[in-house]
């Protein structure tokens, strides 16, 4: 028997496979397809202080081995998430829950993280710092080590639960950003968010997405994500949740060898609603073929 369990900041996951924020709603839709309790954990849709409609449509475009999205953080707001969505999810699912918090100002992050920290249903807080910092010019918070560090420090001050800072890959030096998060009290790093990308409709000569640009994810980004997980593992001592293009058990193993303690699956859930349980079912036979008895021994094992 292969042991597929991993520990994320003292939280035990029965396996390292977690649906990624924004590709799993608040879980209800997937409960139609399978028993959510097979999952290692669940990561909720990105949540802001106030309800948001998000961007105009079209919000989705296709890409070779991937997709673009510009959903723009459509969500019912932190109150509704904690008071309606999460209790509803708890009726279907008893495992660990990761709340994903977004914001357009430091205050908004602090407000939402504090609320999430107080919820009995939240185990880990993932802080998505890929949103534009509207207070200082619109560059994403995650694009500068200074901003990333400041947000980390501010949310740390109001949270007792583990905080995972979720980094954007659209930066020159991912290790520097991760170090700033570590130095300011993060408990872990999640990466990657989507790669800024674009498609143009050649018939009407306009960007496909109403928002002009969107985020690329799916298998296409896997080698970039893997490289960043590798670099961050070298740069910090924190546990890493790796993601970006994971679509099969082999990808989970590769991510873990690069340094991930757990792995999130995003776009693949949309393409195949059974992506997560199929990956989870595929892990034990793969590990057996590889001669691995405890999946946790893979974490960072390709580092030399």
């Amino acid at each position, binding site marked *: 028997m292969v042991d597929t369990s991993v520990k994320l900041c003292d939280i035990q996951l029965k396996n390292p496979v977690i649906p990624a924020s924004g590709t799993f709603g608040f879980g209800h*839709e997937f409960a139609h397809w399978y028993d959510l309790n097979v999952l290692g954990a669940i990561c909720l849709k990105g949540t802001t202080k106030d309800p948001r409609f998000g961007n105009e*449509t079209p*919000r989705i475009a*296709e890409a070779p081995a991937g997709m673009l999205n510009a*959903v723009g953080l459509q969500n019912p707001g932190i109150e509704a998430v904690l008071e309606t969505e999460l209790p509803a999810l708890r009726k279907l699912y008893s495992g660990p829950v990761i709340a994903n918090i977004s914001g357009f100002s430091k205050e908004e992050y602090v407000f939402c993280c504090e609320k999430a920290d107080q919820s009995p249903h939240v185990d880990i807080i993932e802080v998505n710092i890929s949103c534009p910092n509207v207070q200082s010019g619109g560059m994403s918070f995650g694009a500068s080590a200074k901003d990333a560090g400041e947000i980390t420090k501010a949310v740390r001050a109001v949270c007792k639960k583990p905080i995972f800072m979720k980094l954007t890959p659209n930066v020159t030096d991912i290790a520097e950003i991760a170090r700033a998060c570590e130095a300011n009290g993060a408990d872990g790093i999640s990466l990657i968010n989507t790669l800024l990308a674009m498609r143009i409709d050649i018939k009407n000569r306009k960007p496909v997405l109403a928002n002009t640009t969107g985020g690329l994810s799916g298998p296409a980004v896997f080698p970039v994500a893997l490289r960043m997980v590798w670099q961050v593992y070298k740069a910090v001592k924190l546990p890493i949740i790796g993601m970006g293009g994971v679509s099969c058990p082999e990808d989970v193993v590769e991510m873990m060898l690069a340094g991930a303690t757990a792995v999130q699956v995003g776009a693949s859930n*949309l*393409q195949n609603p059974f992506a997560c349980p199929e990956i989870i079912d595929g892990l034990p036979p793969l590990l057996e073929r590889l001669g691995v008895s405890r999946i946790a021994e893979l974490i960072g094992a390709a580092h030399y």
Partner: protein
Amino acid sequence: MKKGSYIIENTQQIAKNTYRTRLKGDTSAIVAPGQFVNIALAGSFLRRPLSVCDWDEKGLWVIYKTVGKGTSALSKLEPGQKLDLLTGLGNGFDMELAGSRPMLIGGGVGVPPLYGLAKRLMKQGVRPLAILGFNTAEEVFYEKEFAELGCDVVVATVDGSYGQKGFVTDAMPQEGTTFFYACGPEPMLKAVYNRTNTSGQLSFEERMGCGFGACMGCACRTKYGAKRICKDGPVLMKEEVVW
């Protein structure tokens, strides 16, 4: 909603760039006309959403225009090839609202789901008036099929090369109908919305990430808040539509 493997039984070209494919497999998840399937195609990451034109216990039909990579690839697959589908997606049309004389208004590849609807209305003893609009004669399809069901059918073409000249709205009677069901390009839906006196249902399209309500890719504003075209739609009540 179900996920399953389907076998291509046959594909025919039924009009210019327009194909009908019969897919054999489990149709138990399909509960209403106007629902759609989401088809995985080798070489494309996202699935392709297509309305169910009609279905029986052994399979379903889709009718589609080859507008890009996915639909072209689909039209070229050989009988016997297998496809992975999500079926029973979306709400579909509500047949209980039809009244005694519903009007079905279809534009282009918006026509197919109305065929499945017409068939089932006829079975319930309701005889709809079907108004089918196309750009030009060579794009016209399914006039005969609707007529064979026993519907009244009016065909309109924009260039007048077949049937009545003009848009579907030009062919719509101002009275005598009890409800309408419309499916077609957004400008058509909007025109229909503006020119109908009865209540009705309109079926919308949007680019989709998942097709089953998970990604918020297909959001749309309604009078009752944001809805997802894939899950809360694709069919909306006229009364809730916000343009």
